[in-house]
């Protein structure tokens, strides 16, 4: 069997700051197969966007991959220079749907001009062929073909978002990274966007890495999922397995924090506290201070991402109490000691 499309192994990304090295991603590992829709969930600042940017070589100047490997079709890409990324990877293989679609299209270029520039850089296609491809994609995302020559400001926000998606897809990349593609949109528009993305799933074998804080979106449209908390992947596996059999406390509390239409009366989970800011190497479970079931071991080393041993071989959780945490939650809720307060109070400085 050939290598998977994208393998991320023990990846650590750090930013140089005035206070030292800030760890944004710590020891993350997961794999995206060809044609797979992979969801990466977590709250703001958990490192999911950083992880995604590391894949396409888009880290800010002060960020770097300090350890671990990124393999694309079996080849290591974490150390590729800017020119190699441009020639071999960007857009031809991996394209990008940015978080801020409203400001990402160049306001001084027609969408077709921007597409022509990208197309001429990465392919030998004629300008006419590039226009045709863009028109096709406009069709797929529900924009009129005649509007490819419009400027971004002539589109509404939702239309800009769709134009961005068309641009991400028109060169038929193998992997599309979508960084919160629907953040700025209302729910109806969100739903449509996912319909367009789903449509590409059936028509091509494009893989998608979908980054979002809305885990319900992932369970709805992705095959696999990884859930991040403060730089660490806490749990990963098939969407089905993680949904039905979550093991990491953050994973199931995060999941329960979203309303479910099938259980309208259920109380939503609240996760107390804030994710910590991590300077230097992370050698604890970053969720320990927010976790009702934390034990001393959680703060002694970073838990490894171990298979949980169910039907799904990819299903793994990084929790020393992965075997019992969910049962404890089912039995006692988030208040195991009955003290009413499980989170260590913040220390005064």
């Amino acid at each position, binding site marked *: 069997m050939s290598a998977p499309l994208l393998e991320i192994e023990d990846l650590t990304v750090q930013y140089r700051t005035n206070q030292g090295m800030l760890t944004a991603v710590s020891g993350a590992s997961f794999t995206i197969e060809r044609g797979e829709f992979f969801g990466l969930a977590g709250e703001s600042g958990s490192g999911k966007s950083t992880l995604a940017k590391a894949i396409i070589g888009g880290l800010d100047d002060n960020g770097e991959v300090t350890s671990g490997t990124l393999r694309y079709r079996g080849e290591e890409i974490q150390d590729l220079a800017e020119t190699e990324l441009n020639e071999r990877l960007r857009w031809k293989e991996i394209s990008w749907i940015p978080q801020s679609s409203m400001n990402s299209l160049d306001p001084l270029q027609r969408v077709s001009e921007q597409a022509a520039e990208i197309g001429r850089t990465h392919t030998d296609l004629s300008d006419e062929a590039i226009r045709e491809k863009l028109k096709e994609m406009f069709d797929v995302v529900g924009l009129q073909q005649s509007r490819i020559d419009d*400027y971004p400001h002539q589109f509404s926000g939702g239309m800009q978002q769709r134009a961005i998606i068309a641009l991400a897809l028109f060169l038929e990349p193998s992997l599309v990274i979508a960084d919160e593609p629907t953040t700025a949109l209302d729910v109806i528009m969100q739903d449509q966007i996912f319909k367009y993305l789903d449509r590409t799933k059936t028509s091509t074998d494009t893989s998608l890495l979908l980054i979002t804080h809305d885990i319900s979106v992932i369970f709805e449209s992705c095959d696999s999922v990884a859930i991040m908390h403060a730089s660490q992947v806490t749990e990963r596996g098939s969407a089905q397995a993680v949904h039905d059999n979550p093991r990491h406390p953050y994973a199931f509390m995060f999941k329960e924090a979203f309303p479910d239409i099938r259980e309208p009366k259920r109380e939503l989970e609240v996760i107390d506290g804030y994710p910590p800011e991590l300077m230097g190497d992370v050698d604890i479970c970053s969720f320990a201070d927010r976790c009702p079931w934390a034990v001393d071991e959680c703060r002694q080393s970073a838990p490894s991402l171990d298979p949980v041993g169910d039907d799904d071989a990819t299903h793994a959780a990084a929790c020393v109490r992965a075997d019992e945490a969910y049962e404890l939650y089912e039995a006692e809720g988030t208040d195991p000691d009955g003290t009413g307060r499980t989170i260590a109070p913040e220390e005064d400085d």
Partner: protein
Amino acid sequence: MSSLKRYFAVRSAQTVVMLFLVLTALFVLFRSMPGDFTTQMAAAGANEAALARIREQWGLNEPLYVQYFEYIKNLLRGDLGQSPVYRVDVWEFVKLRMFNTFILVAPAMTFTYLFGSVVGTIAGSKRGGLLERIGIVPVITTGSFPAFFTSIVLIVVFADWFNLFPTSGMLSATSATGLEWWEPYLSWDFAHHYVLPFTAVFLRYLFIPSLIMRTSVVEVMGQDHTEYHRLTGISPTKRLRHVAKHASLPVITIYPVSLARALGGVVLIETVFNWPGIGFTLVEAVLGRDYPVVQFVFFIVATFVILSNFVVDLVYGVIDPRIRIDD
């Protein structure tokens, strides 16, 4: 009509109206200054009856609105009138002086802005690079000196010590006569005299486009569409071109304003270099209440500001589709 054409048409009409308003304002402004051109004659001891005759002759006794309509009527016929002080046609009087200033300032400022934009782009695109940290210092230093000081230093160093250029004037006194008016401007002698004043204008104003462009480039580099361009994998050269296009908008905005200010502001440079430009002419004309000359010179300067703004708007309309007036 396309939105671009419509935009041009609307802006053209606005420009004509603006020019007319400027004419009117100038007329009222200078007539409301105390005294007229006979005041100096009176001070020199001319008798009152003679002065009254002169006022009569020049129409200064007429009500203001009569004078105004007369003035506009003549202007529309292309008649700028005579200077009552020098008794020569206004156009004849100022045209060469205006041209002298213009041929110094316009190329110098244009070159300064092009050069400064490049300096600013390089400095801004390599934040913390050598050029940003050190290269911008001399630019700011020379820009901080008063223009006359820079001019004097240039003269002392390059004209006096090294004896490379003449110390002052626009042409050598020995220049041949009987030429067409424009011929001297093509001579080596002129070019020789041109270098130092040109350099003085350049050093004086270089900091403006450099600093604006640098700040603007830094800002645009941090914008989402620049990051998007980078991730789409287009070449760094193309990316920089996009950045420069965005970043040049503020520089283009300030260029005509700067140019117009420089046309008036090079008085000091003209004075130090003895450049036969418009600055001295204007000062003299204002003091002498030489209405026709003053009005015309100010009108030309104002026209220039308005027209250059007009041109900027047109360039904007071409560069930035968002500026065009929508249908």
